[in-house]
């Protein structure tokens, strides 16, 4: 294992975060705080409790998950795409470092940044809403595993993208709609039966449901099923990255 290289990539990526702190940290925190003000305090005060949880508190796990998915994908995809764009990828490819170590550096840094953003959002939420965490260990586990999984997904997008437009397509046109429709702002039990069934095809439902369970002990979907779905998505991302290593797709040809 080339620890110096993994450390160099990790430090380089985190340094980029501090260099662009407004974009990397302040922006998601401000936008999520606005959700709390609008949906939590203003509208939420007129809404009934869901599963015994106030509406303002109910939306916290969904909002954290929304920021986590968006940030994980954005950080990891941009991290690997930018060297491709400016040509410095030559250095990564010619260094005595395996693709596994490259992923560890980039995905590790993107995961760290996303967990930091998620944690800041949770702390910010505390300013607006009273909430509690019923299962702290599982809350942290879901936070880290989801961040790592979607950072890997972002890494794959960054390798696949050959322009800034493609870099934005998946997060904006697929991930964000799936997150909004995945129960961030409502319980899927509130939907008509047909839509409840259709919604179960949305993988984000399982992420949000499991994460919400770690807070309030209530879930739309059985937690075991959610964990299995998270592991399936993690496995798919690992397979995708393994295939990229094997073929050198969009890197070495």
């Amino acid at each position, binding site marked *: 294992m080339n620890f110096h290289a993994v450390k*160099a990539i990790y430090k380089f990526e985190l340094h980029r975060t501090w260099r662009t702190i407004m974009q990397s940290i302040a922006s998601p925190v401000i936008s999520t705080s606005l959700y709390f003000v609008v949906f939590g305090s203003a509208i939420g005060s007129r809404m009934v409790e869901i599963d015994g949880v106030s509406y303002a508190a109910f939306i916290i796990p969904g909002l954290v998950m929304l920021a986590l998915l968006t940030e994980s994908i954005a950080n990891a995809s941009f991290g690997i795409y*930018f060297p491709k764009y400016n040509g410095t990828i*030559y250095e990564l490819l*010619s260094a*005595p470092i395996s693709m596994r170590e490259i992923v560890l550096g980039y995905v590790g840094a993107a995961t760290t940044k996303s967990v930091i953003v998620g944690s800041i959002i949770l702390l910010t939420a505390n300013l607006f809403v009273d909430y509690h965490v019923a299962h702290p260990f599982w809350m942290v586990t879901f936070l880290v595993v989801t961040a790592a999984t979607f950072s890997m997904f972002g890494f794959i997008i960054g390798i696949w993208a050959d322009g800034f437009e493609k870099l934005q397509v998946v997060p904006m046109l697929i991930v964000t709609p799936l997150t909004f429709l995945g129960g961030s702002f409502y319980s899927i039990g509130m939907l008509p039966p047909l839509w409840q069934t259709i919604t179960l095809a949305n993988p984000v439902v399982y992420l949000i449901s499991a994460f919400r369970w770690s807070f309030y002990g209530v879930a739309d979907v059985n937690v075991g099923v959610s964990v299995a779905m998270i592991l399936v998505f993690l496995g798919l991302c690992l397979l995708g990255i393994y295939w990229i290593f094997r073929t050198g797709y969009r890197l070495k040809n």
Partner: protein
Amino acid sequence: MSPIISVQHLNKIYDSGFQALNDVSLDIRRGEIFALLGPNGAGKTTMISIICGIVNPSSGVITAGGHDIIRDFRAARSKIGLVPQELCTDGFESVISTVNFSRGLFGRAPNKAYIEQILRQLSLWEKRDSRIMELSGGMKRRVMIAKALSHEPEILFLDEPTAGVDVELRRDMWEMVRGLRERGVTIILTTHYIEEAEEMADRIGVISRGKLILVEEKDVLMEKLGQKQLRLQLQKPLLDLPTELKAYPLSLTQDGLELIYHFDTQGDQTGIADLFRRLDEHGIDYKDIHSKQRSLEEIFVSLVTERASAEAAE
């Protein structure tokens, strides 16, 4: 002594079907400066990219420092530094952080003293905290070299190192390259500036259309292929060459004021003494004489042209 780089039967066919390299075999000796010449698209950068691990070969075996570049890629790559043709830098980073990053990437522990030494040698120390985007093109090129040297490589690839740089910087780079060679670094450079290869290289390889068509010691190459010309400026213009002199490899300039005699320095007899006697017999007087060696550029152009003609004939 075993070669520091060994390339055996290297082929590269891109997904598009284009064959960039065709059965290339080459040994690079430890401590030499090797210049790889070839026209655009000849396969120079592809070959360098494969040796450095940036592009996958289609077939062939390559070792660097005795290590297979695929099976033992860590040991092989740690010996190699690369300065690519394009100025590829992260413009938002400072000079020192990007050089430190490169050292870490190549698995070396931080070494402030060594990095300072490199930056001072390349006149970058005063600019160490500047963002790369604020530097001139020449300074950016120096940053690329500093990055390539940051992990103390034994082999340095310079792909068109002086393309687009001013004369002063080019001279500085030549000095730096000689200094590196004195420290035992093996240098492989590609260049479009033939005088650069003529000035610096110990050996020269010529690649054309993916095939290595010649590898030779520079001095031997110049001697073997460097035909000489003897030019005689005449006292009076000649309308035509006397019939008796037409058997000689002689030509007359259009104005009739200059005779050009081609001869081979490798031959036992150059024929110059005989030529002078014949000119004297015909009463052809001359007021000045000078000789000129065929340049490496002329040799290179003729090699590539001959190759292209031979392939077209096939």
